[in-house]
């Protein structure tokens, strides 16, 4: 088991390295950089930018050095916890990111938990009562969850929460608490606001999860060992829970690796609409203004978040299913 974990962690490293290169390349691709955009914007407003200051900043951030060197500066800083400096906010990226990243993680985590809690019983119900009205209804509900764009769901939620409960649900907490140290009131406020984004973001993932659990469990239920077990007189409940369910549980864990990137994506979109204090709105703004260190570090964080999430799900899978850690997914 230890060997499996170690190998899995080692594989993660090249993945992250390639990811960081990819992100850095994407950040460099725009034909102009932040300073050029900035100067152009100033000129458009009829003001003159202080060219000497801009030259100084360009030097300071190493814009005059070769690309490879800049990459290494950025990534070595990233590893040490120095995520660069945001041009737009004129403060270190770390100070901007801090709480937002924690909140993104919180939202993603809660969404996964919600997905599990909802999808698991529904999936089992659908699979054991295939082609019943309940199965059709729930499958349809899940599909609707997949088909409605997140942002629209968010808008509708916002509107109806306002009409029915008279509350404003924008944001992830009461605005007064943002950037405040953690306190009981703040935690309460977050919890009050959390359920709506979690529901919205989880809708698509839950729908997908339900369908896959259903399909997997159905496959499993048709296998001969289940027939044998039933023929030998095992009670239907036991014939379901003892083996088939455990088999489909494997995939349940491994699927987290698939839906986690989707959840993070959905979280970004929903965050923009609901103006959550997560990474989404800031990332969007940073991308538009070519604030490259802020955007790059954000993307890198999100990538790390998903890669680590996948790693955890893989390790959990290794615990559950010895075949996986023994054969180790070897490449032929």
């Amino acid at each position: 088991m230890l060997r499996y974990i170690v190998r899995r962690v080692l594989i993660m490293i090249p993945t992250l390295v390639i990811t960081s290169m990819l992100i850095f390349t994407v950040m460099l691709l725009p034909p102009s950089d932040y300073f050029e955009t900035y100067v152009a914007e100033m000129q458009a407003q009829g003001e003159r930018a202080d060219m000497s200051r801009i030259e100084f900043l360009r030097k300071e951030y190493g814009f005059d050095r070769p690309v490879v060197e800049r990459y290494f500066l950025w990534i070595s800083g990233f590893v040490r916890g120095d995520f660069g400096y945001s041009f737009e906010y004129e403060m270190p990226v770390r100070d901007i990111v801090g709480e937002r990243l924690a909140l993104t993680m919180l939202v993603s985590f809660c969404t996964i938990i919600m997905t599990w809690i909802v999808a698991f019983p529904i999936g089992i119900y659908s699979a054991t009562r295939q082609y019943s009205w309940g199965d059709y209804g729930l499958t349809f509900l899940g599909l609707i969850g997949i088909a409605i764009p997140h942002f629209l769901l968010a808008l509708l939620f916002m509107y109806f929460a306002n009409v029915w409960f008279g509350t404003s649900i924008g944001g992830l907490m009461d605005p007064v608490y943002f950037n405040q140290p953690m306190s009981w009131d703040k935690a309460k406020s977050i919890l009050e606001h959390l359920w709506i984004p979690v529901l919205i973001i989880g809708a698509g993932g839950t729908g997908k999860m339900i369908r896959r659990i259903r399909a997997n469990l159905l496959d499993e239920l048709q296998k001969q060992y289940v027939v044998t077990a039933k023929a030998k007189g095992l009670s239907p409940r036991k014939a379901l829970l003892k083996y088939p369910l455990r088999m489909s549980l494997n995939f349940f864990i491994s699927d987290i690796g698939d839906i986690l990137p989707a959840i993070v994506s959905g979280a970004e979109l929903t965050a923009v609409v609901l103006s959550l204090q997560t990474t989404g709105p800031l990332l969007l703004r940073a991308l538009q203004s070519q604030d490259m260190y802020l955007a790059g570090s954000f993307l890198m964080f999100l990538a790390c978040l998903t890669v680590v999430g996948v790693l955890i799900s893989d390790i959990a899978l290794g615990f559950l299913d010895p075949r996986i850690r023994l054969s180790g997914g070897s490449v032929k």
Partner: protein
Amino acid sequence: MTTGSIKDRLPAPGGPLPHLVSTAPFNPQSAEDLTEAQRNLYLASQWRLMWWKFKRHRLAVASGAILIVLYAAIAIVEFLAPYNDQTINIDFIRAPPQSVHIFHEGRLTAPFVYGLSYKLNMDDLKREYTDDTSKRYPIRFFCRGDSYRFWGLIEGDLHLVCPAHDGTLFLLGTDRLGRDMLSRMIYGGRISLTIGLIGISISFVLGIIIGGLAGYYGGKFDMITQRAIEVIQSLPHIPLWLALSSIMPPNWSPLLVYFGITLILGLMDWTGLARAVRSKLLSLREDDYVTAAQLMGASTGRIVFRHLVPGFMSHLIASATITIPSMILGETALSFLGLGLRPPITSWGVMLNEAQNINVVALYPWLMLPVVPVIIVILAFNFLGDGLRDAADPYH
């Protein structure tokens, strides 16, 4: 049954047992002979079997029909839409949907709409439209209306339905510039539906080539592609799409942006297919017919793309169908955030961009209508994909 009745039917003790002998000729091969239906089944080609199996999935067939109609419709949007997508009706800004009536004062008439009378409410500066029942505007069919260039090439002005000559016909309301929502939705379909199709073609080609070579060669090349796929799959797509689309220079022409977006969507999506192709090839390449082809001197390309890939093409098509919705949703999301397509191109996402704030939901809910075709198309593709996947392996 009582014992007495059995006794009645038994022969007398010692007497012969009555039995029936059929005089019809006996065919000793009757067990092996096939009925007409069975022979058809055994002789049917693979594609025919798939079709039979697909037909059993009613929902998939219906979805397929809907999609065929929709895709056929995008070829003739200029004809179907009552207005042009950019026709601005300055007097009817954010007008609500007009309903079609066929009864007037209790009598059945040709379909018509009532006129809209407009009043600016000075208290909240809201435009209020009410039906003016004194004016009736019959709807015209196969009529001359807004002139257009069919596919940007041929001049024309024939429409399926048009408003009355001095009237209006806003079946789904108008937007903030007074453009007809229905017409814009029909035009938007051309963009939104093709984006998924072109995107999937890109990812299909990439997936088959990369996955095919990785699976066939294995070794180092496989190792590298596997890592690359892992990287791309572990990245959250929307942030990366955002990053990629923010690269596109703002002075690109709308058409170029359109192709840029499809390229971005396609570039991120080939991984699933590549994986499927690779894992299939890993097992198939050990088969005898591959060895035979190698011995006969077939090139790698020929073995992979002529002999191996067609063998599971049906699976690939099925899984490609299931990923189209994610592309359509991707375009909607990007355009919604203002990073995707931009006006004057009309797509469902661009239209939804205008439904961004909560006022719309409260005051002009019809601006959210473009989400209806989005949902229909996505559901249809999902069901179709399901049906295709079930049918892809007809021998199962």
